[in-house]
């Protein structure tokens, strides 16, 4: 009856996959963050890399609230600079992703892809400030990564960058979900992990 409610075991699995997800994506972000150009590719590349993790997580824990836990914590971590609109945007993306996955009963592959695409919009939230509060963002970047990094970034980043990054994130997530399902088929279904 209560098939879709999270039990203790699901919560523990969620915590474990949360750790894996955060560690993998932080690793990728740290590598990409070294130069200004690759720094802008984070929303494209991170969803591709963590796609398999996300699809394994969702097939291990196909319960309502699974995406919610992951999404809220990832949003808070990636907006640790405290930009409140970024947090709100990330929370909305998470809830929508959860509802879409729920509509597919956490089984449908198409619904999973769409849900993952919406979910990946979280990775654009740190860049939201670039469009909406450009000066504040550049000040903060100068403080954290040095004035030179900020100058280079300011010189070639146009004002509409946030919207372009949304498109990039959607493309990345589409590739990532395809990749994730391939990986699941190739490695996990055979090994009987599911």
């Amino acid at each position, binding site marked *: 009856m209560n098939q879709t409610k999270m039990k*203790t075991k699901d*919560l*523990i699995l969620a*915590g474990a*996959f949360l750790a894996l997800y955060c*560690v993998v994506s932080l690793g990728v972000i740290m590598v990409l963050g070294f130069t200004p150009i690759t720094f802008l590719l984070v929303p494209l590349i991170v969803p591709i890399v963590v796609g398999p993790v996300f699809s394994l997580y969702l097939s291990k824990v196909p319960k309502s609230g699974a995406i919610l836990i992951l999404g809220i*914590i990832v949003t808070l971590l990636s907006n640790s600079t405290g930009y409140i609109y970024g947090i709100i945007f990330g929370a909305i993306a998470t809830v929508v992703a959860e509802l879409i996955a729920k509509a597919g009963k956490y089984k449908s592959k198409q619904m999973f892809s769409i849900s993952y695409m919406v979910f990946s919009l979280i990775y654009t939230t740190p860049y939201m400030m670039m469009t909406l509060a450009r000066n504040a963002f550049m000040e903060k970047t100068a403080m954290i990564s040095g004035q030179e990094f900020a100058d280079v970034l300011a010189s070639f980043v146009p004002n509409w960058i946030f919207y372009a990054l949304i498109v990039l994130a959607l493309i990345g997530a589409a590739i990532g979900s395809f990749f994730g399902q391939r990986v699941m088929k190739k490695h*996990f279904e055979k*090994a009987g992990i599911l």
Partner: protein
Amino acid sequence: MSANSYRQAYLYIDPRTKMLLVLCCGTLFNAQMGMVAEIAVFFVVFTIGLFVHGVKSAAKIFIFYSLAGLLPLILLHSIEGFMTIFFTALSTLVLIFTPAVYALNIITKTTTVSDSVSALRKMHLSDSVVIPIAVFFRFVPTLKEEWQSIRSAMKLRGIGTSFFNVVRRPILNMEYVLIPLMMSTANIAEELAAASMSRGLAKGVNRVPISEVKFRVADYIIIVGFPVMLAILYSLKQKGVIV
């Protein structure tokens, strides 16, 4: 997992205090605190870590901090050109992020799942939030161990994990690292779930913890002293007294 691996060095502090430490270190990259504040915060966290986490790890982080963070600051006047940019960026990154990373390290290395569960429950959070967060902190060191064994297995088979190799074949390398990591995460999580449930960790069930989680003298000193210190440093920076 034996309780021994989590044994405190000299001092026990509440998990909630450790979380406050991370939050306080987070102000370094949220507000412009200046260099003096960054170094002061590091030394506070370092001192706490020395007592809570042990001398060995504190010494490690101290050596890293002085080599990558403080040394470039001193040498900066004598280096020219491109290297200046590189070293300034490196040293600011180290100065800003090391305290937070070390504070997180203290949480993950010195807190048991049951301690963090009872601490988070005392903050009146719902179990659906408490259990994943507690497991999250428990799992990060496990992932590091798994990653090390995956790396040695790759080395044994002659697959290098050097930077050059990763750049040359990104997809293949990703598969080699990510798939085993996901496999072991899935398996370990299942085992951890079985073990924790047999020890009475369940959603909505109250358990009586063996180790008592409460604020002690050291906790009160940190909880009051650290934010006050941050506030003083911030106002001094605003007035231009310190850099």
